[in-house]
């Protein structure tokens, strides 16, 4: 008996070591990425970067900043998110109140999950084709439309999941009081699920800011801040990419700073959404 104990405990020990190593690798990669972005980006981060647009010669190492890209990304992502929200909120509510457990409902959910998995480059290509077809050039509007398409499945499915978590007793109590399905949807479910909805929206927004492949074809790039929907818009991810591709070290440094700004924005949104959820959870029923 002694021997087998030994062997069984050794196997368990080996597994524990492997788990520790894997876990360490995962945590360390996060650490490495954050460290790289910070250590390369901080030194090059100046106030100018955030407040000015590229002047002539920016790409040769002279003055300017990436305000064009910062504002461009914010405009693109906000537009896309709002547009997506207009469609995903009703869809999610509809899914939950009218087609909860029907086959149709589960097909739609499957479709949404699959759409979520489609990479942004495909959305970009698809968006580009549509833009060609309607004669739209690479512009803020084009980017917004593509981002909206990209964000739709994410938002809808996330909202749907949130709504599904609504305690059944709540909906039953409401229905027992005689509310119509529409009233149920808009007054009760929405209020209960607001924290989750906010998270869903911010999740999609963060995706919209960070994504490059979808706006590559559709939003174009420019050194200016777009003053109309039909003008091209710069975006932060593309700003990073283009600055990196330039053979001047000063410009590449700025790329790192831009990456830092981008990362910071995305993390900031993530933290804000957690805070909001935490605050608003006071009003929800568990």
């Amino acid at each position, binding site marked *: 008996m002694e021997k087998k104990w030994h062997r*069984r*405990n050794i*196997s*368990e020990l080996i*597994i*524990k070591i*492997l*788990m*520790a*190593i*894997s*876990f360490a*690798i*995962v*945590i360390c*990669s*996060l650490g*490495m*990425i954050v460290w*790289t*972005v910070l250590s*390369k980006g901080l030194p090059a981060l100046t106030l100018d970067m955030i407040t000015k647009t590229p002047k002539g010669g920016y790409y040769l190492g002279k003055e300017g900043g990436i305000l064009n890209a910062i504002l461009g990304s914010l405009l693109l992502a906000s537009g896309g998110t709002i547009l997506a929200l207009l469609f995903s909120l009703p869809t999610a509510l509809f899914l939950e109140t009218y087609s909860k457990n029907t086959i149709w409902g589960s097909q739609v959910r*499957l479709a949404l*999950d*699959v759409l979520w*998995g*489609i*990479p*942004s*480059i*495909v959305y970009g*290509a*698809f968006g*580009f*084709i549509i833009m060609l077809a309607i004669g739209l050039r690479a512009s803020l509007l084009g980017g917004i439309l593509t981002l909206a398409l990209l964000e739709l499945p994410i938002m809808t499915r996330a909202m749907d999941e949130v709504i599904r978590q609504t305690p059944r007793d709540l909906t039953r109590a409401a229905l027992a009081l005689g509310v119509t399905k529409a009233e149920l949807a808009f007054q009760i479910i929405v209020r209960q699920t607001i924290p989750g909805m906010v998270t869903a929206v911010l999740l999609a927004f*963060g995706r919209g*800011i*960070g*994504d*490059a*492949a979808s706006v*590559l*074809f559709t939003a174009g790039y420019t050194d200016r801040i777009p003053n109309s929907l039909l003008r091209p818009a710069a975006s932060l*991810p593309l700003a*990073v*990419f283009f600055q*990196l591709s330039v053979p001047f070290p000063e410009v590449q440094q700025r*790329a*790192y700073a831009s*990456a830092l700004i*981008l*990362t910071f924005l*995305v*993390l900031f949104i*993530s933290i804000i959404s*957690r805070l909001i959820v935490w605050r608003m959870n006071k009003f929800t029923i568990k």
Partner: protein
Amino acid sequence: MQGLFGYWPFILGTFWVTAVGVGLSIPICFFTTVYLTEYARQSIRMAVKPLLDILAAIPSVVYGVWGMIAIVPWVEKSLAPFLSSNFGFLPIFTSSNPTGFSIIAGGIVLAVMITPFIIAVSSEVLSNIPQGLREASLSLGSTRWETIRFVLLPRVIPGLIAAIVLGASRAVGETMAVLMVVGNVPQIPKSIFDAAYPLPALIANNYGEMMSIPMYDAALMGAALILLIIILVFNIMSQLILRRFTNGKATPWKRNGIEETFLN
């Protein structure tokens, strides 16, 4: 660029990078998931969840920057010389590529990118196994690992595979990060240290020429279509499998109507 064979180096490029990325991430994800669902305390699980969320939220370009700064030089200076001098007899490790912009660099970056996702899905699958089953095995005096290996895993393997396939489909479609570290040389890869040119990179790099060269746009859109089809197939199949493992409804055995409500 006409005809399907024109796409071949790009399809292979996608295949190699994805294979390396998924291959590297499988053991890491497996052991980390098992740790998180079967061994770790609640406090650790709660601390790790936001970290994984952050890892998942980092934009693709930032991964690309990290890849260029940290991974590519490492491959060039440490990994490639080490592997080709010690294991160079394996064709997969020989290199004629003097830079670090290679499949392995792309694979490493991809592995890190898809890891949080695979862990999240696999954790879902494993958590859906009722606690009573674990206790049944443990009450017989088995160790935790024996329980995982003989009792839990056989039940969820399809779900875990589906999680991996979903991760693979993410890897296939990943554009920016890979493009920045993989070299973008349209050749048929023979070694992980060769550069390659995956499909998304092809589309992204050449969109500018699309309008000026005739038939180019059709060719690129064709590439996009191939990409889409691969991904759709992966996605639909895995989602269908996963539905059986995360709803808690379809268990491999019947229970004659008795519910689990009075456990605990």
